[in-house]
């Protein structure tokens, strides 16, 4: 399957940001038809390496070479995405690079035609449609990108690369925001593309998919090349050891003591009636001392549930009760004061104010409380003291409490939020996508904290698209589909297939399913 000369060859790539060495003399080869997985902890330097390869960043040292026919390899000029594209390198970024005001087709055409030409749209469409048929990357080409789902956007990104006859495709954490079904579809496409001779590099934190899809695994650790494995000979343990440099402790969950209902939803509706993402007469409760997993394909009403428990909205009809009292005003502050811990789905966007300090971000929910301010004046000392303690307790890796939060990596932002909300011993916890994009070490840490809070007697709702995560954490499952919730029962009575069916909208009760 692999030919003699590699498609792509990186030699001794070094990149520094100030004093930080993000990549230290990294070399790698990629061959035709090969799927290479790039692994490493948050901040290990994976994205940086790919950004150099694609010309977004300029390396300080080292070369990028690509096959140019026969045995010849040419060196790419640094810092030129144009040259990388011309050399057949396509990249799907961790954060999509799509113009949302254009259609999928226009995003694909962008930059491929002489600027002042016209009338080439037709030919372009024909070519894209041909690629779609061959690859199975189905997407509505004429819809504006802001109207597409995340999965569709990603397909547009891949089409962008294929349209330019990419021979190398790079995907940076492609599955972090995909549903399991979408991820499956993506892998099918990747396999097919590789079979047709494409070389693929993909970055992921999910070991399961890495083992399932890749041929070869390369691990980065703190900017260094930690090692390489052939997938067929690798297992989770070996990879984890390479990544973290030490064994990762598995989180174990012992059965808890279920208490009284702390949160009750009674026929709650919210949002446009008939809309998929709205809630339609939903009833459930969250009890003290249990973790409830809310499974479902994203966009089925999870956001509405999260908004309600976060205090950003109140039901249009029905009642939501907290400790037995109905919640009638959308006021996050009140919920916080009442002991509800809320972790936002999009932590960079909703969780932290990037230009404020770590300390301020830890205090932000409670600045008005007497602990942090007096007569309207901030008590900076108290805030700093609390932050210093929290940083230590939750192992938030940052230069200090005064560092700006935007400098933190995703995993550390999540730890910051944990520190903010868990430190007050909350009675109710909303954990919305708690480990999205986090490396396995960080994931384990977050899980441990959640379980610990449950053991203290908190009621926890975990919203996640990652079934592995839900099974690792949940005592009980709720499944949401098209704004309606099914109580799927205790985790012990369920398996992935059953939950998957419910997520797809099969309306069976647990009893009929069990039979």
């Amino acid at each position, binding site marked *: 399957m692999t030919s003699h000369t590699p498609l792509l060859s990186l030699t001794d790539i070094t990149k520094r940001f100030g004093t930080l060495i993000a990549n230290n003399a990294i070399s790698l080869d990629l061959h035709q038809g090969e799927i290479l997985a790039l692994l490493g902890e948050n901040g290990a330097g994976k994205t940086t390496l790919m950004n150099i390869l694609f010309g977004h960043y300029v390396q300080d040292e080292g070369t990028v070479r690509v096959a140019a026919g026969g045995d010849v390899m040419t060196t790419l000029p640094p810092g030129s995405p*144009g*040259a990388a594209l011309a050399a057949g390198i396509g990249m799907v970024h961790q954060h999509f*690079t799509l113009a949302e005001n*254009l259609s999928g087709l226009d995003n694909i*055409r962008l*930059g*491929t*035609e*002489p600027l002042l030409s016209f009338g080439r749209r037709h030919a372009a469409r024909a070519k894209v449609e041909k690629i779609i048929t061959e690859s199975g990357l189905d997407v509505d080409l004429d819809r504006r990108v802001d109207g597409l789902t995340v999965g569709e956007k990603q397909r547009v990104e891949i089409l962008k690369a294929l349209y330019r006859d990419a021979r190398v495709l790079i995907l940076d954490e492609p599955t972090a925001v995909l549903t399991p079904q979408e991820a499956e579809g993506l892998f099918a496409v990747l396999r097919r593309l590789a079979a047709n001779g494409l070389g693929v590099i993909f970055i992921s934190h999910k070991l399961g998919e890495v083992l399932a899809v890749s041929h070869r695994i390369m691990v980065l650790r703190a900017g260094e090349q930690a090692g390489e494995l052939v997938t067929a000979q690798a297992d989770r343990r070996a990879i984890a050891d390479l990544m973290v440099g030490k064994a990762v402790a598995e989180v174990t969950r012992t059965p808890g003591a279920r208490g009284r209902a702390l949160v009750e939803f009674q026929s709650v509706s919210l949002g446009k009636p008939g809309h998929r993402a709205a809630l339609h007469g939903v009833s459930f409760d969250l009890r003290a001392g249990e973790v409830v997993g809310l499974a479902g394909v994203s966009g089925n009403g999870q956001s509405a549930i999260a908004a309600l428990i976060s205090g950003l909205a109140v039901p249009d009809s029905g009642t939501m009760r907290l400790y037995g009292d109905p919640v009638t005003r959308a006021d996050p502050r009140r919920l916080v004061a009442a002991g509800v811990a809320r972790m936002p789905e999009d932590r960079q966007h909703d969780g932290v104010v990037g230009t404020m300090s770590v300390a301020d971000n830890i205090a932000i929910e409670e600045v008005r409380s007497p602990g942090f301010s007096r007569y309207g004046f901030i008590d900076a000392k108290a805030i700093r003291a609390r932050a210093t303690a929290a940083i230590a307790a939750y192992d938030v890796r940052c230069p200090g409490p005064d560092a700006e939060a935007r400098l933190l990596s995703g995993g550390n932002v999540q730890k910051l939020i944990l520190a903010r909300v868990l430190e007050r011993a909350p009675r109710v916890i909303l954990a919305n996508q708690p480990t999205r994009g986090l490396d396995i070490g960080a994931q384990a840490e977050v899980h441990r904290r959640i379980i610990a809070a449950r053991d203290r007697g908190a009621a926890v709702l975990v919203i996640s698209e990652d079934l592995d995560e839900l099974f690792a954490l949940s005592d009980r499952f709720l499944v949401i589909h098209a704004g309606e919730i099914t109580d799927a029962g205790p985790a012990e009575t369920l398996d992935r297939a059953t939950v998957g069916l419910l997520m797809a909208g099969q309306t069976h009760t647990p009893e009929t399913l069990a039979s």
Partner: protein
Amino acid sequence: MDVLFDIFGSANFWAAAIRIATPLIFGVLGALICERAGVLNLGIEGIFVAGAMAGWLAVYLGAGLWGGVLVAALTGAAFGLLHAFLTVVLGLSQHVSGIGITLLATSASYFTYRTALPDVSSPPRIVPFQSLDLAGLSDLPFFGPVLFSQTALTWLALLLVALVAFVLYRTPLGLSIRAVGDNPASVEAQGLSVIGLRIGAVVVGSALMALGGAFLTMSAFDAFFFGMVNGRGWICIALVVFASWQPGKALLGALLFGAFDAFQIRLQAEIGQVVPGQVFLMLPYLLSILALVLVARKADYPRALLQPWTKGQRH
């Protein structure tokens, strides 16, 4: 009611509306191009002044009328280049740079005019553009006087609306400009230059703004006066939002504004002191605000507007 009917039924009224709208069409197109690429250009008011002065001065010093138009466009382009350098290359505040450009272009124009013509106390005049009567079409009823009493610059403005719309929606260049104003990373990832596109858009857009000024001194009138731009540039900034950054709606917005203005002029002359004159003068602004409030929810902002972009930085 009769008054209204008389006004709206008259060809002269519509001819006036188009005349009043012409500088706005240039300006709003220019602002639209800049903003589509993600750059707010508050230099517009000053660039109007510079275009008005430079174009006129060139003709006064002996250039042909079209030579004057070219000089105006180049002057606008030069100020656009400065704005682009400050905001696109250096990533400085678009608000401040814009206001600085307005101050610079205005004061430089005034200073140049006064230094070039120190002993003038009655403004000298040029022979301006004359109305363009295509093959006697001005004899057509109604449409004749409305359309064919206009000068070549008005026709140029109308032509530019079509041209800008075509480029924006039918060429890869337009695609790139729309993309760079929405998400510069999308353009960079496709191998195009964010900086290059933005500089180009700001330079071209500013050249168009200057033509709006040139219209005032070379078509609507034949001399340059201090203060004659009189807020027309700022109006264009409002019209761009009203137009949701679309050339067709920009034309419509400019024409509507021209019609309001032509209307209030006539109403003021007709019904006089029933209400203070300022009420009429306020009308176009108040109606602009009202229109903005009404279209606001639907407005499709270029998402990257006001956001500088630096290569190699996460955004």
